[in-house]
């Protein structure tokens, strides 16, 4: 574990999570959630869990973003909160 990287990534992680949940445009929200996925993938790699890191990169940042975008395109893009 590399402590400076650790602290920087974790702070960005909280910021990305809060922004993703507070943006009213759901498509932007899905993209910021993809950023959150990549940040957490970086965090796993930095903590020595490389197998978890590449699973998170494909599944967490890739497939879940595709699922979110597909759902938003089939429903409504605006959110009330």
């Amino acid at each position, binding site marked *: *574990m590399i402590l400076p990287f650790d602290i920087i990534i974790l702070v960005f992680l909280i910021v990305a999570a809060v922004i993703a949940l507070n943006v009213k445009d759901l498509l932007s*929200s899905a993209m910021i959630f993809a950023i959150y996925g990549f940040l957490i993938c970086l*965090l796993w790699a930095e903590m*020595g*869990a490389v197998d*978890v890191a590449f699973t998170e990169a494909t599944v967490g940042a890739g497939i879940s973003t595709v699922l979110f975008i597909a759902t938003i395109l089939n*429903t409504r893009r605006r959110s009330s*909160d």
Partner: protein
Amino acid sequence: MVEFFLNTVKPNFNYWVYVILMMVGLWSLIAKNNLIKKIMGLAIFQTAIILFYVSLGVKDGATIPVLEQVPVEAAGTVAAASTAGAFADGFANPVPHVLMLTAIVVGVATLGVALALCQTIFKEFDTLEEDELLRKIKALPDDV
């Protein structure tokens, strides 16, 4: 304040962030009105728990759990296993990682099912906002 940060927060920073992320996800599940935002909060909650488990496997000065050298003639024997065990302090504990690998895959499956249910709800009620949904469900006749 600075002393509190250096003595209490910094050595356990992963655990503090895991609790914060978990509470952010829980807040979204309870307080958000849009169903997609709720599902996003569920995913954040899940990554927070994975963060907790992976943090358990971290050691100071440890590297990734990949063994570089095992003597060829000793590979696969008891001697090789004990040689690897002698250097175990230098590697992160891989057991929580393997457990969380399963959790990530199950998580994306639940995410897919939840979003599919969202699309079905949207087809039926033409909205994803919780308050409108409740109003429309209450307006339905009883025998539906």
